[in-house]
């Protein structure tokens, strides 16, 4: 199973690459749009600031990702990678997401600790391929200050003052706000589901 992991200098890729490899995936890390254009399966990780996605525009990776999504390549966005699937984020209003899902990301309201850090429970909203076999109330590790809205493509929510999209799935486009590479057995199961997602 070959997976292309997009490197856009947004934090550290070691853990996600390690987790995918531990599941038997052959991982290719790239920031080259030509390489990304040939991806059979794509992961867009990302920790840090939404503004880091600007680099995806500058390097031409964005167009390659949009092509891949249009070609029905299974795509998984993690953390900022999920947020990028939406229209944008108030964290960096001048950067646009790809708008595959509707709505924008916003900062958690004052009155509680931000970032939202730790293990939160998943509330499953509908059946999905990404979360197949994940139990209602299963725990995943989150670390983020901005949250994505709940919409028809939301397959699981988590709650931190307000409910937000913890996992989304629309056709071949998937995203998780939590870090599956750091979420123990639950996270590895999600990654395994992604790796087994049918690719045409």
């Amino acid at each position: 199973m070959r997976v292309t992991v997009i490197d856009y200098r947004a934090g550290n890729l070691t853990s996600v690459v390690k987790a995918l490899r531990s599941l038997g995936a052959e991982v290719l890390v790239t920031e080259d749009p030509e390489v990304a254009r040939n991806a059979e399966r794509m992961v867009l990780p990302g920790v840090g600031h939404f503004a880091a996605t600007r680099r995806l525009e500058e390097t031409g990776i964005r167009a390659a990702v949009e092509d891949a999504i249009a070609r029905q390549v299974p795509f998984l966005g993690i953390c900022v990678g999920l947020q990028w699937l939406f229209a944008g984020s108030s964290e960096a209003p001048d950067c646009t997401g790809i708008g595959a899902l509707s709505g924008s990301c916003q900062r958690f309201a004052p009155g509680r600790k931000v970032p939202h850090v730790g293990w939160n429970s998943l509330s499953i909203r509908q059946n999905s391929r990404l979360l197949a076999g994940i139990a209602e109330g299963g725990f995943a590790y989150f670390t983020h200050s901005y949250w994505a809205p709940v919409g028809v493509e939301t397959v699981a929510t988590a709650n931190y003052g307000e409910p937000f999209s913890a996992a989304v799935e629309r056709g071949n486009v998937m995203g998780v706000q939590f870090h599956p590479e750091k979420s123990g057995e639950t996270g590895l199961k999600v990654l395994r589901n992604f790796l087994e997602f049918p690719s045409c």
Partner: protein
Amino acid sequence: MLTKRIIACLDVRDGRVVKGVQFVDLVDAGDPAELAARHAASGADEIVLLDITATHEGRGTLLETVRRTAQRLFVPFTVGGGIRSADEAAAVFDAGADKISINSAALTRPELIGEIGAQFGAQAVVVAIDARRATEGDPVADAQVYIAGGRKPTGRRAIEWAREAESRGAGEILLTSMDSDGTRAGFDCELTAAVSEAVQIPVIASGGAGTAQHFTRVFCEGKADAALAASIFHFGIADVRSLKEALRRDGIPMRLPC
């Protein structure tokens, strides 16, 4: 529901886990990779590896230890001890750490917090504060920051330094009470609450864990978001799972391993 985190800490010297009381009388407690895996399987929400190697030669083994420990670990992994620059931090991240913890280097040059955050995200930067209750003034409000394993005072107040660390972009504060550390007599709940209420970022309480009740108290009275302990897990006094079961019975939200 967001759960309170139980963090297992491994103090590592020359590639081996050690434990002592208040950083002296160290005894061998095992292999870091093995212990980290065991704690994670038992339900530890995170692993912290704190390198207390004093010598330069010993530092070389740290990256190898981090790499080996991270290899089989699929929960968040923080590494601290002696990281002085963004480049050193980058090497530790590259070896497999998810977060780094900085202490005296951040006090010497607070810009380091923002420099590491800019490259790896604020969530990856934990500022560790070793504090002692003040002997003059208000013991808690004026609690002082120490470096060099609690031996050297910096003349800074813990609360004020925690606020500065937050404003410079720290993702979390790891607060160790040097008065309680190694005593197994309980966390310093008052100090933890004072720091936790002073900042918006999560605070990890450390120092003094001995019983399950100590954890319940530091989550309730101490307003801690996470609590860290080392020695009680190493020698089988309590494993993480039984600790978390006890805390859940006390009504503390806990992630129990499946």
